[in-house]
């Protein structure tokens, strides 16, 4: 007659804290989580198949729709993979422009992460502040390529256009303002005892385990492993630029939080350097009008805001890729979720989902 019973509960796919359409099947003992099974696929649109059906330049548009919080990073990795297939050189000015935009995108993406993560834990205001700063980055993107979310801001062989007049000054103004804003987020969260309580020792994962799961990006670096594609396999102009890769040691949510906050500062540093050294010249290399890469295959990786973005392309010599496959850091990082929240309380689930910083568009593709 007396006894405890496990409760099964369904979190999502429509739930305020699952960042889209993630569904979690939870097994609970009171408030304690015994077992979690993520169910994905609610946002599957077949981006990979579309990448095989459409020509190379057309498929870029679909990469925009994968990780819609950091569409530029997806654009970049796909375009670079095609360029490697083609063997095209990108002009130096375009390389620097790519770095500038990629780092601005990283800041914007981390601001979304910060806002949603904080809002999941109850700090409503940080969300709005983060969105306010992100808006300025979106303005910069709008000014550059005309779109605010799905940029399609790159062309094979370079950039579609040069920066418009006044863009660099506007970017500088934003970057001058930004440290003060980070300081505000710090005041609201970093030392706050409630925030510390909610994030310290929550969702802990140690370095070797994170490697075993294949985690990348800030989630891996929070566990003390300094792996960053920008340093490990430098692409574009990253080899010339000076920046640090922040690394945590405990592997808990708080360390990942501090890592990402520091990454925003480092991104700002990179953009300032790149703006300083921006070479003159062409922005678009010579590419044939019809993109027909020679037969072959390529696997190309980039450091996206959420981790290692990979594209695997097989060309059969036609205008379409024979096979197009994306390695999504979100998908890989999400796998560790059941492991990270076992034994925690329900409230920690939202903290861990927040800290993994998943975008379901990229998980399901």
């Amino acid at each position, binding site marked *: 007659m007396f006894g405890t019973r496990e409760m099964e509960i369904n979190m999502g796919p429509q739930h305020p804290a699952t960042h889209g359409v993630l569904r979690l099947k939870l097994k609970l003992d009171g408030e304690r989580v015994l077992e979690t099974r993520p169910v994905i696929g609610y946002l599957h649109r077949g981006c990979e198949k579309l990448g095989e059906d459409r020509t190379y330049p057309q498929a870029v548009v679909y990469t925009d729709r994968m990780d819609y919080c950091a569409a530029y990073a997806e654009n970049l990795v796909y375009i670079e993979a095609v360029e490697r297939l083609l063997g095209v050189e990108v002009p130096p000015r375009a390389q620097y422009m790519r770095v500038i935009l990629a780092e601005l995108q990283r800041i914007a993406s981390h601001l979304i992460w910060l806002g949603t993560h904080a809002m999941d834990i109850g700090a409503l205001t940080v969300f709005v502040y983060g969105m306010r700063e992100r808006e300025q980055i979106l303005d910069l993107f709008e000014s550059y390529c005309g779109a605010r979310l799905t940029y399609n801001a790159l062309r094979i062989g370079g950039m579609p256009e040069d920066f418009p007049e006044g863009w660099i000054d506007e970017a500088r103004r934003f970057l001058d303002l930004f440290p003060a804003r980070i300081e505000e987020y710090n005041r609201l969260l970093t030392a706050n005892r409630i925030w510390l309580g*909610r994030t310290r020792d929550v969702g802990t994962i140690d370095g070797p385990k994170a490697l075993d799961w294949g985690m990348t990006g800030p989630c891996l670096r929070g566990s003390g492993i300094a792996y960053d594609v920008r340093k490990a396999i430098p692409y574009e102009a990253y080899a010339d630029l000076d920046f640090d890769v922040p690394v945590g040691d405990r592997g808990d949510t708080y360390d990942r939080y501090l890592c990402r906050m520091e990454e925003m500062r480092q991104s700002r540093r990179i953009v300032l350097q790149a703006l300083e050294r921006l070479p003159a010249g062409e922005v678009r290399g010579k590419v044939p009008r019809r993109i027909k890469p020679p037969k072959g295959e390529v696997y190309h990786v980039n450091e996206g805001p959420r981790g290692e973005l990979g594209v695997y392309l097989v060309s059969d010599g036609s205008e379409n890729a024979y096979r197009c496959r994306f390695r999504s850091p979100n998908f890989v990082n999400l796998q560790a979720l059941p492991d990270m929240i076992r034994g925690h309380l329900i409230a920690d689930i939202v903290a861990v989902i927040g800290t993994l910083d998943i975008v379901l568009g990229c998980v399901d593709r």
Partner: protein
Amino acid sequence: MNPTLLQFVLIPAVKIAVVISIILFVVVYLVLLERKVNAWMQSRLGPMRVGWHGVLQTIADVIKLFIKEDITPTHVDRLAFFLAPVILLLPALAAFAVIPLSGQPFRVAGVTVTPWISDVNVGLLFLLAIGSLGVYGIVMAGWASNSKYSMLGALRSAAQMVSYEVPLGLSVVSVLMLAGTASMVGIVRAQAAAGYWFAFWLPYPQIVGLFLYFVSGVAETNRLPFDLPEAENELVAGFHTEYSGMKFAFFFLAEYINMILVGCIVAVLFLGGWLPVTLGIPGLREPLSNFLPLLGDVGATLTGFFWLSAKVLVVLFVYLWMRATFPRYRYDQLMRLGWKWLIPLGLAHVMLTGLVMLLSRG
């Protein structure tokens, strides 16, 4: 007319009607204030469309809730489902029976009217008792909804409210000791006689008591950073997940009425109730204690009401301010805070107050 009837039925009935309408009016504008203050703190504008700067927004929302379809899910326990909002709302309203809205009785048509519904000599105990009834409504709502999220929310809420009753009770003990009475009117009169608010009692200011009461009050009313029972990011909407329309509005109303109640109690116990802010400052006290002298008694009553409202407003502002700033506690941390910090702090505070009282009496 029969004077007994007049004194014990008619006048109280009118007063109850007046108090309830004041409360409802304040709730409507408290909701608007909350949205506006939060918006301003977040660099936003808040409601702007309905009326000038959105002044009619809440009224529009209430109308919307009224005309919404009242959904009763299939698997609920119907009786408990219907009763829960009522059980939550009634104690919240009943508690205002002992809150003195002002200090000065006035005469209307030869009858003396006091600006409080009743002055019970165990007013504070009445408040504590009736305040702890609200949890039944929440538990009933969670249980009757027959939904797992509601259930979790209700259980959290029950544990939270029961735990925070203790520091809440402890924080008022020192006020009882200082005032020597449990009557709410008596407590304010004691502050007037002493010449200071209890929050600024000189040898040992009751700031700790104020802090304790306020924190426990926030926890009792389920507001951020203690809004676990309805943490929308975790439990969708907690105990009222399955409610909609007017029944939801009752929960909403009860939450805001409880906020106002906490504001009133803080004002009465620690901030001198209807007494002016300049209490104890010799030159300023007299002119400010009744700045509507032409109206006589009625003026004095209104002045007292003004001061009380100002204090309540400050407390409510802190509520909203905290909501805009802080993250939410986790369930176990909330319990740890309540039992390991607030209760020992409350006990220490009571003992220290007693000691100081003993010493200062000489």
